[in-house]
Each structure stands twice: as C-alpha cells, then as structure tokens.
C-alpha cells in the first residue's frame, strides 16, 4: 500500500516536471523579463521640451555614405560623402554631381562657389562644375581631417588625428597651427577622444572650434590666441551630454549657435554667449546610436542635418512664433 502511494506521488512529480518542460518550451516569454542592469538610455533620450522646429521632407542623396553638408551662395545645398559631392536646390532637386574616389569627410563652400573638400588626410578644391582646381599634399600620415571652414582670406582645417587646426591661404599655403597646448598663452589644447572635431566661421567672421574633450566651443583670434569659450558637460538639455560633444556645430545667419550631439542625439540652438535657447530636434527624431550629425544653416533659417544612419539630409524648418 505504502509502495503504491510512493509510486503515485513520484509519478505525479515526474509528470509535473515534464509539464513544466513543455510549458517553459512553448509558453515561456524570456523577452518580457526586464533588465536589472539597464543603463537608462531610454530615460536619458526623453526630452522635456518641445522642438521649436518641424521636419520637412528629407533629401535622399544617391551617395553611399554621406558625411557632411554645406550651403553655398544663391541657396545651393552641397552634400559630401563617399565618392563625391551632390548639389541640391531648396526643393531637394539634384542640380549636379561631382564624383571622385575616396571619402569626402567634410566640405565648405567659398563665395565664388569653389568647393573646399576635406579628404581623409588632405584637402582638395573643386569648382561647382566638377573640375578639380587643386589638390593639396597630405598633411601627415596620422591625419584625420574632420572639418574645414573658409572665409574671405583663409581656409581652416581641423585635424582630429593631430588634434590641431591648421590655417591655410586660399592657395593652400599653411600659415599657422592653431590651438596647440600652450600654458603661457593659457591655451589648454584640444582633447579629441574620437574623430569628431568641428570648426566654423561665425557670421561675424570669428573662428570657432569644438574642443570635444572639454565639451566646449572655443573662439580663436587671427593670431591664434584663445579669445573665448563656453559650454559644459551635462545630460540635461542645457549642456553637452558626455564624451566628445558637441560633435558638430554651425551658425545661423543671425549668429546663433546650432550644435549637434551624439550619445543623446539632439540638435540645439544657443545664443552668442552660449545660453541655451531652443531645441531643433530631440533624440526621438534620430535612430539610437547615430553619430556625426553634421550641420548647416540656410539664409532663411532652415537647419540642415546629415543623418548618417538613415543616409538622409534632414531638413528642419522653424515653426512660426505663437
């Protein structure tokens, strides 16, 4: 008698175990158990304030890997990428395409429509009809040119490899190295942990450089002296979030800063003295993990953003003031 009870019990146990196996196999939902070690990215990517801009139809260049955008005179949009440069009008219609081997990492445009194109380790000048004007010699084997800026007399080249900004004449003669560590002139030097290193010329004609390792934008004079700087690290909307930000920046016609960040992808507008003004596009507008949102602004205040992850030129228009 006792035997049978034992047998029955152990059999029930056996069946229970098999039942559990089946249940676990067919009904188990591993994907629903939450991650106890969540970094909290989702929370970080939530923005509290509404963007002051709305997105228009993006331009989809035919280039494989787009890297950089610039606006030229008479409202042309130049998009540089792997194997060439494409020119668009505001309607997003392709005007013409320049093709060349190699990746154009950055682009700037002179008033006479000459394109200044930064390749991996050297700079090339092209005219808008697709004829190469000149190709300068490589700066250094370790060079990684991430940005070029141009004003009337000079071309400034940001080299993330050498962590320095070079000042050239329009003909390609190197004049100076800007931003080298120099305690005597209390220049801290650039810290560039990753290949995001942007330069731009403000409408006032000043040279601004993004010192991403220090989360600051720095203003340099003609003599290479550090004139001003602003910016501080912060996950909140006013600051630059974490490492290597702002990854890119540009200026609006009225001299306001437009900055873009990676990590928490967002495009923001700051006043001349570095006060946060408005959000152009928050993280929800971009795929998570999008790096290198290169920026340009048009004369009528549109903001053009390179989206490498979607390989699109995103266009943001200001909402009319209420």
């Amino acid at each position, binding site marked *: 008698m006792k035997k049978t009870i034992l047998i029955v019990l152990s059999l029930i146990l056996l069946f229970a175990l098999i039942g559990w196996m089946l249940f676990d196999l067919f009904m188990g939902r*591993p*994907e629903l*158990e939450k*991650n*106890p*070690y*969540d*970094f*909290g*990215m989702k929370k*970080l990517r939530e923005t509290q304030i509404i963007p002051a801009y709305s997105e228009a139809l993006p331009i989809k260049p035919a280039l494989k890997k787009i890297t950089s955008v610039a606006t030229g005179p008479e409202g042309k949009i130049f998009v540089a990428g792997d194997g060439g440069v494409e020119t668009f009008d505001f309607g997003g219609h392709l005007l013409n395409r320049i093709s060349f081997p190699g990746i154009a990492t950055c682009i700037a445009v002179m008033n006479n429509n000459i394109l200044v194109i930064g390749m991996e380790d050297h700079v090339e000048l092209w005219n808008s009809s697709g004829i190469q004007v000149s190709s300068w010699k490589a700066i250094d084997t370790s060079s990684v040119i991430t940005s070029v800026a141009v004003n009337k007399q000079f071309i400034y080249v940001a080299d993330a490899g050498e962590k320095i900004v070079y000042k050239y004449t329009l003909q390609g003669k190197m004049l100076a190295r800007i931003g080298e560590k120099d305690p005597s002139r209390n220049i801290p030097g650039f*810290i560039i*942990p*990753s*290949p995001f290193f942007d330069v731009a010329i403000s409408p006032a004609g000043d040279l601004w450089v993004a010192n991403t*390792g*220090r*989360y600051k934008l720095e203003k340099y004079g003609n003599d290479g002296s550090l004139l001003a700087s602003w910016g501080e*690290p*912060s*996950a*909140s909307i006013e600051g630059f*979030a*974490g*490492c*290597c*930000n702002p990854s890119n920046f540009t200026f609006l016609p009225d001299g306001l800063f437009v900055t873009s960040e*990676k*990590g*928490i992808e967002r495009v923001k507008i700051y006043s001349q003295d570095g006060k946060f003004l408005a959000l152009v596009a928050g993280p929800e507008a971009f795929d998570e*993990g999008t790096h290198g949102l290169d920026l340009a602004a048009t004369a009528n205040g549109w903001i053009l953003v390179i989206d490498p992850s979607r390989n699109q030129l995103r266009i943001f228009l200001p909402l009319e003031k209420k």
Partner: protein
Amino acid sequence: MEKQNRRQFLRLAIRGTLFGGLALITGDLLFRKGGSLFNNNIMSGPTVWQLDPSKCIQCGRCATNCVKTPSAVKCTHAFSMCGYCNLCSGYFKPGTKNLDTGAEKQVCPVNAIKRSYVEDPFFEYTIDESLCIGCGKCVKGCGAFGNGSLQLQVRHPLCDNCNECSIARNCPAGAFSRVPASDPYLLKGFGKDRV
C-alpha cells in the same frame, strides 16, 4: 531447432542493417562536401562560443542567463581604442559633475572598473574581471558617447563551452555564434572600420 536459427539469422540481418545505418551517417558526415574530414571551412575542430560586439545591444542577459554565476561573459577593454577621457561615460553616470571615484557616480553595479590617473587630462580604465558580472552597463555608456572601447567578450577559461550556450539562446541580437576554437575573440574596431 531451425526456428531458433531463423531468429538468429533475422537478428544478424537487422544488426547488419543497424551497423550499416551508422556507417552511412558517419560516412556522410565525414566525406560529404564540407564534411568533418575534407572541409575547407576549418569547422571540424572543436568550436567555442563568440560574442560579436558589433551586434551586441547590452540587454544585460549575459549577466542573467549564463549557466555560471558570475557570468563567463566579461567586459573587455580594447585599450588601443580608448580615448582615455577624463569624463568616461562608461564609468560615470550621465550628468556627473565633479569627477571622483565616488560610488554614487559609478555606472558599474559591482565597482569592477578601476580608474587611474595617467597624465592631464587622461585617465586609464581597467576591468577587474574577478568582479565583473558582464552586465554591459559600461559598454552601453561607452558605446553611446565614446569610442566603444569597452566591449563584452566570452572569457574562454571561465566558459564551460556548453553544447548550446544558454545566453546564445536568449540573445535578442543573435550576437553569439560557434566559431573555431583557434580564434575565439572578436573585438570591434580592430581591422579596417573606424570608430
């Protein structure tokens, strides 16, 4: 007794067939194109499990799903990719102000990352694998903001090399795969691709 003999013979026949079956299977496995003997994709040796950091999304299941506790998956630091940032987003919680090694500022749940001063403004970050539980929090932070030099990898001396890895089964990104034991590691950023 001839009935017995018939039985005997029948058994012999079936035994033969069974043996033949085994032989067939083996032969196929060994000699077919890409079989265990004459194959060109060097998989016939023992295999190990490999985590592809470029697919990894740091869901934290390496920490929770490994048959070992703590997990055999550890954070590996590819120093040659590290920016040696002062504010390391893999080390500090986002939005940390004054940068010291205070517990309230650290991302790592088990204090497995050591932060040591190199020179202004550079800091070295090393992983103490005896503490690391492979949760990938730091990897997330480093990948999102920095160069992604912190990466999860299966540490093979610790790994039991199960026939089926229970992390692999639950990996949402399918980042695990069997690879020849000859080169078990795969670190992102080595080779051509730039960060």
